[in-house]
């Protein structure tokens, strides 16, 4: 055994890169909502990005080490401490037998990740450890669960400066096979519009809101159901867009106006409620180049890992949030 779960948020699941190859049977890929985080965790622990980690939506939990275990923390920063002492995010740490790791709420973004040295060694279903709640594959982690890990030869005590992907912004999209169902004026308006991430969001998809009329395609209530891929931007009957995420359906009749580039999906999934999102169309050729450059960046992550220096000036963002909280109460 490795980590014993003493407290846990309501939506924490084990995720890896996902389960490819079952679209024909209606099973979407699943996998981490923020795939960049999996690569960062792997770089911090000197292991494969295919290792499974714990994905924590919004709220973390409390975990006790059943044996000495290297851990890494990536994705949406959360308040983190080991036996009560704050530890930095985007870093790897050694958790000694009996020590307790406490992870609070996400301070920016949505999905935080807890990686274990050697990866979480849960059951494999159809080639992947990814839980797919929508498909009834696996379940959320509960109090009393044990997160087993394979043995690890890596070291802890490293940090990585993450790219900032926790506040929305511009998402690059390509035209997809149903883009032409929307007239040019609607497409132009779509590209000009500043959207806000709505309240309805989970691992299936995230709703976007905007002022003004919706975005409708010609004859869209009678379009033949067609293949869906992760990143598709689907227009529901009311013309409000949803970005489809790793647990999305595999086919659907609502038209897709465009598809978010895979490399920008982490930013999409990590956008908190009400934050601003815009879309920028790029050509298929540009998109292919952007995605290839992103893959190269991911492969270089291990070279960007640095030793963790325990200098108080070096404690990242988390402390500043606590200071802001203190200032607010001081002025009351």
């Amino acid at each position: 055994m490795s980590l014993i779960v003493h407290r846990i948020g309501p939506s924490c699941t084990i995720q890896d890169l996902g389960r490819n190859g079952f679209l024909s049977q209606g099973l979407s890929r699943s996998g981490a909502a923020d795939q960049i985080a999996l690569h960062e965790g792997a770089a911090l622990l000197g292991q494969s990005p295919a290792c499974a980690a714990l994905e924590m939506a919004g709220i973390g939990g409390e975990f006790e080490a059943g044996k000495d275990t290297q851990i890494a923390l990536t994705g949406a920063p959360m308040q983190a401490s080991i036996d009560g002492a704050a530890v930095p995010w985007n870093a790897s740490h050694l958790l000694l037998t009996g020590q307790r790791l406490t992870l609070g709420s996400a301070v920016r973004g949505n999905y935080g990740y807890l990686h274990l040295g050697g990866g979480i060694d849960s059951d494999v279903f159809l080639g992947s450890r990814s839980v797919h709640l929508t498909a009834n594959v696996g379940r959320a982690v509960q109090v009393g669960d044990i997160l087993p890990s394979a043995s690890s030869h890596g070291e802890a005590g490293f940090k990585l400066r993450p790219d900032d992907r926790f506040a929305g912004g511009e998402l690059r999209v390509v035209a997809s096979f149903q883009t032409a169902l929307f007239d040019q004026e609607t497409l132009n308006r779509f590209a000009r519009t500043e959207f806000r991430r709505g309240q309805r969001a989970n691992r299936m998809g995230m709703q976007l809101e905007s002022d003004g009329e919706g975005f409708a395609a010609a004859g869209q209530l009678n379009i033949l159901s067609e293949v869906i891929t992760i990143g598709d931007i689907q227009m529901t009957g009311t013309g409000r867009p949803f970005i489809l995420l790793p647990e999305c359906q595999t086919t659907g009749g609502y038209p897709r106006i465009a598809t978010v580039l895979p490399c920008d999906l982490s930013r999409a999934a990590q956008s908190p409620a009400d934050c601003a999102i815009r879309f920028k169309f790029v050509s298929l050729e540009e998109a292919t180049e952007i995605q290839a450059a992103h893959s190269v960046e991911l492969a270089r992550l291990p070279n960007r890992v640095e030793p963790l220096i325990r200098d108080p000036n070096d404690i990242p963002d988390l402390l500043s949030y606590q200071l802001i909280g203190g200032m607010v109460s001081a002025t009351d």
Partner: protein
Amino acid sequence: MTRTNHSPEFRTVGIDGLLVTFADRMAEDANRAALALRGEFEKRAWDGVEETSTSLASTYIRIDPTRSSLAEFVPRVQQLVRTRDWYDASLPPGRVLWRVPTVFGTELAPQLDEAAKIAGLTPGEAIKRLSQSRVRVLTIGFAPGQPYLGPLGAEFNIPRQKDLTPKVPAGALVMAISQFVLFAGPAPTGWRHIGQTAFRCFRPEMQNCFALNPGDEMLFHPITPDELDQIRENNSDGNGGATREEIVA
């Protein structure tokens, strides 16, 4: 059924997919064509092809964009598609007919009356026609193991709802555009909930976790809510009281 007057259309999907579409509406020959082209890709196993699937009238092919580009891949597929008439292809072998006990209407399937009205039928006439319609698994999708079934008669060519129903249960039989979907799990839907079964399309705890394959056929015969309760008490095989019969070619 009349022959589709449409030639295969090629469109890209995201940065790594190609969709070959055989018709812009549901048609039996286009569905067979899509299944046959997918079968051809599975047989040829081209290097760099990661995955294939079919929808109602299209074949989807996903490539590994680090090994090939769509710009190179699309002309190869076009050349392959031109080698034969896919609309003439036969259905895949080894098909099965399922007869599935179903509660039509009642509080278990509350939109039967509304759907019948849109179709211009009394609820009783709608149940009669729907339960006598032997439908084919046209594609599996949306959720694991979940079939799109059809075609139903033209009177059932009713549009989807504008707004989503927040949740229908697993085993729900829903209808729109002359098709059924038999829901694999609880989900939101824009289709109308007209029947309820205890048939489990996806059985992750079993060795063979997917119950259906494209080309299989289904019949939904009416039962009462009490009978469905009894079926649910003894449903360890997941079939929901359904019987299974090989279709002889």
